[in-house]
């Protein structure tokens, strides 16, 4: 864009696709760490650099994502952007990037001694190479989809046993360290058949230290009924026909990314109010999740 051109003297901040980069003169190339993850730019550059012949169509085939994951992300897109594709300006979210990863390998095995009603334990490996150094994690969620046979508005109680394995090659004593947690959750199954399990505190240290291969073991067992209302926990519910996906809400600080608070500041004539900290403690969903009393208090304090 014009203002960036003035600042860093490169003729333009365009990213070269991996294979075309080598032919460009070094001035055009972005550092490797910055190049990945700008899905839109490589084809732009390719079209511009392949003057006259159209071989940019012959791009390497892409792996097709799971249709449920695609449906989830389309819904997220509709919530976050207008029909024209412009990010909604209602300040409801702090993220400007959301990535959904499906596990790249899965080892199914049974832990006899874990839970009697155990039906499904998976070992998941997520490859997060596409996350760039300038994409900072705000929130990460394990996304479970219920299969369609679960009746809607049924009451379900699930126990989740989650452990994140961290391979520490530098340490001889215990090369593999795992952080694990067990918790149970109870909810009503609504029309939308998704359960989001917040694993931010687990993944934050790994992603912040540029770990890109996340290895998790998840045991997720659900039973119909609600123990608090003394209903008998009945038969198990077949929670998911596909392994959970991993959703990362990120704040991309690169120049190409849209910085919501930046444009808001321009629009507001009154003196700028203290800038909101972008730490994990800040809800990436903005104030949508907060209850109104807290909202009121904040506005009163302001």
């Amino acid at each position, binding site marked *: *864009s*014009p203002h960036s051109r003035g600042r860093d003297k490169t003729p333009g901040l365009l990213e070269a696709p991996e294979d075309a980069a080598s032919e460009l003169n070094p001035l055009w190339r972005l550092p490797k760490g910055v190049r990945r993850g700008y*899905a839109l730019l490589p084809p732009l550059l390719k079209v511009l650099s392949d003057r006259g012949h159209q071989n940019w169509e012959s791009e390497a085939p892409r792996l097709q994502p799971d249709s449920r994951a695609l449906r989830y992300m*389309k819904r997220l*897109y509709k919530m976050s*952007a207008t029909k024209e594709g412009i*990010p909604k300006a209602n300040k409801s979210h702090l993220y400007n990037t*959301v990535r959904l990863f499906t596990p790249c390998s899965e080892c199914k095995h049974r832990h006899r001694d874990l839970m009697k009603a155990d039906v499904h334990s998976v070992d998941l490996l997520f490859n997060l190479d596409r996350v760039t150094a300038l994409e900072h994690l705000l929130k990460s969620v394990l996304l479970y989809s219920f299969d369609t046979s679960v009746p809607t508005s049924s009451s379900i109680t699930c126990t989740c046993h989650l452990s994140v394995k961290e391979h520490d090659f530098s340490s001889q004593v215990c090369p593999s360290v795992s952080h694990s947690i067990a918790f149970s959750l109870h909810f009503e199954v609504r029309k939308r058949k998704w359960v989001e399990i917040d694993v931010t505190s687990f993944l934050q240290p790994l992603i912040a230290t540029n770990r890109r291969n996340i290895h998790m073991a998840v045991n997720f067992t659900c039973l119909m009924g609600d123990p608090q209302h003394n209903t008998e926990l009945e038969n198990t519910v077949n929670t998911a026909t596909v392994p959970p996906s991993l959703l990362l809400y990120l704040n991309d600080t690169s120049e190409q*990314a849209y910085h919501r608070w930046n*444009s808001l500041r321009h629009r507001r004539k009154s003196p700028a109010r203290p800038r909101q900290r972008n730490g994990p403690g800040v809800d990436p969903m903005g104030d949508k999740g907060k209850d109104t009393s807290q909202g009121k208090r904040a506005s009163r304090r302001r």
Partner: protein
Amino acid sequence: RHENPKAVPATPPYNLSEYFKQFLFPQNECELHNFRLSFSQLKWDRWIIAPHRYSPQYCKGDCPRVVGHRYGSPVHTMVQNIIYEKLDSSVPKPSCVPAEYSPLSVLTIEPDGSIVYKEYEDMIATKCTCR
């Protein structure tokens, strides 16, 4: 009109606002033009899931010699005009370029099959200026 066709103005009177406009604004002056494309035209719809259509718009037109506040142009724009007219005509006249943009949200499939929603800055021109 039949007795004396010469006396009749060229444009039909029923579109008065357009008729008077030609006297208020010079023709072909710098302004924002609509342009809409669909990613299927570029055969990108295989990996760009949303939006289906994209309106980047563009700026086109002549820059007036004396650029007033109407364009929000810096004083330098007038100086460049003076250089072009009085000192060195190889220096180009100010150009009609976008002055403001709005962002665009894009949903794409990455080569490894993961899905990314990203908000890109400066993707839709919303205002033009001369500079």
